[in-house]
């Protein structure tokens, strides 16, 4: 069990390192690996140095957003005991995204830090609304997912309505709104990193409690887990992680669904192991999708959110066949 987790973590970490290097090497102007490594110590040609320097923040942002989306999904799945829970499906990403669009519409081009706060606010509001609506008449797993999907559609639609109302705004948020990692400076990385770190620390504390919650709320309570407190902490971590990630890349779905799913398939039922592996697989997924986004079109880049949707949707359909009842 622990040996299996160790092996999985080692494999996922190596994949993460390889993809991180690849994301520095591959792009409109691809570089050989030797030159990337040289550039990291500043020993390459000026052009190579500059290209790598531009790609580093993008690589870091992909890792941070990958951790954010994936861990948010893992926490949601654990606390709701519902494998379909995911910040994308449950409307959290769409809410964060709507808040970012509104923030840009109202204040002009906002600072990354402002956008992070706006995104977390939007995530909080939509997450709370989904909770409230789905608990009317008794919360069930199915009702929760349906309310999430509806909220996602409403927030997404509202976001596009605001965007389309203003050509100038449209031009500025279009790329971000479809999910993208086009950044060239460290400002967004600096804005997002502390929140992702806070979210990671929160999930560390949550891990053992989520193992108890998996046995049902009654038994978890008897084991000494405060149910309300755990749910609040889980909601806070989802808001912080998914909000920060959305502010970085726009709403990218499926990472929060796929990474915990894959982690569970590999390491089994221990939430601490699932969370650890998920935190590695999220960035692996996002870096892979970002690399694909760079090379899939003959010219320019495909939007990251769309690449992820193409990769994720078939898995969701396969999953729907495997799950008999929700």
């Amino acid at each position: 069990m622990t040996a299996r987790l160790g092996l999985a973590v080692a494999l996922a970490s190596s994949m993460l390192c390889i993809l991180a290097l690849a994301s520095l090497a591959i792009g409109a102007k691809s570089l050989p690996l030797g030159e990337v490594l040289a550039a990291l110590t500043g020993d390459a040609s000026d052009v190579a140095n500059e290209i790598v320097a531009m790609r580093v923040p993008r690589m870091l942002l992909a890792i941070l957003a990958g951790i954010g989306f994936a861990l948010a999904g893992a926490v949601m799945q654990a606390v709701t005991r519902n494998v379909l829970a995911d910040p994308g499906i449950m409307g959290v990403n769409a809410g964060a995204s709507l808040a970012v669009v509104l923030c840009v519409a109202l204040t002009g081009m906002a600072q990354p830090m402002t956008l992070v706060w706006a995104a977390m606010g939007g995530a909080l509001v939509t997450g709370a609304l989904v909770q409230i609506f789905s608990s009317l008449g008794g919360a069930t797993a199915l009702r929760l997912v349906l309310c999430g999907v509806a909220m996602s559609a409403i927030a997404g639609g509202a976001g596009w309505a605001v965007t389309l109302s203003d050509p100038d705004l449209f031009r500025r948020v279009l790329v971000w709104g479809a999910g993208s990692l086009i950044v060239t400076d460290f400002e967004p990385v600096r804005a997002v990193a502390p929140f992702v770190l806070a979210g990671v620390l929160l999930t560390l504390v949550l891990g053992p409690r989520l193992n108890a919650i998996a046995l049902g709320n009654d038994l978890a309570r008897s084991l000494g887990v405060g149910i309300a407190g755990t749910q609040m902490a889980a909601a806070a971590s989802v808001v912080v992680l998914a909000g920060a990630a959305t502010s970085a890349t726009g709403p990218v779905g499926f990472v929060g669904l796929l990474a915990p799913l894959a982690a569970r398939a590999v390491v089994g039922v221990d939430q601490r192991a699932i969370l650890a592996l998920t935190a590695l697989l999220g960035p692996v997924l996002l870096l892979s999708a970002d690399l694909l986004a760079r090379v899939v079109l003959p010219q320019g880049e495909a939007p990251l959110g769309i690449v992820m949707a193409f990769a994720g949707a078939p898995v969701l359909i396969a999953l729907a066949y495997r799950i008999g009842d929700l």
Partner: protein
Amino acid sequence: MNYRLQLDRVSAAYEGVSVLKDISLVLPDGVFTAIMGANGSGKSTLLKLLGGAVAPVAGKILLDGKPVSALRPRHLARDIAMLPQFPLAPDGIRVAELVMRGRFPHQTMFRQWSAADRTAVDAAMAQAGVADLAHRLVSTLSGGQRQRVWIALVLAQDTPILLLDEPTSFLDIAYQVELMALLSELSERGRTIVAVLHDINQASRHASHLVMLAGGQVIAAGRPDEVVRAETMRAVFRLESVIVPDPVTFTPMVVPSELRRNR
């Protein structure tokens, strides 16, 4: 009679409807207590009150004279374990992994798994008779085996007080006897056992303290021969009956004397 757990003039409501009215009761230490009563008489609510899962609308639930509501959940969980009627087994979990989760209240952020945990889990699995199932998937077990695994989990929690909500429902008669024997054995070894049960004859055989509830009140509490009487059965279940000695254990046995009844 020594006791740690006590209800002091407790009233409780479920969804606004009064369920228990002004109940005072002590649960004797190291004794197997069975809580019985008609459907809807508040048995499960009483158990949940004792476990701190439900808050009373009036009165106090006391552990060592202190209200359980004032204890931190994790501290309470080192004294009282409660097995609910419908616990959930995560998909793909194995027996040993499930039993280990009973150790949560003894673990901290930085000390997740210790030798003491190992010992407690092994002892709990041996006591519940599931040691040879340790590596089996819980989903492949029979109902009786699964119930013993859940018992092992609450035993691993290693609390002096154990509360069980209808632990024998869904078990066939052989597993029921086995489980009741296990519970009385645990009480003989010093644990306080409180279980909600339906079968009065079984409870009389294995439990040494019975509590009869009706209409949100305690109608009778005491030894089986004090509690299981025709007039109690009439008051609690509105059932006419003859009480005869159990042919095997000589404990009181209820034989209904009505063949059909109008409620």
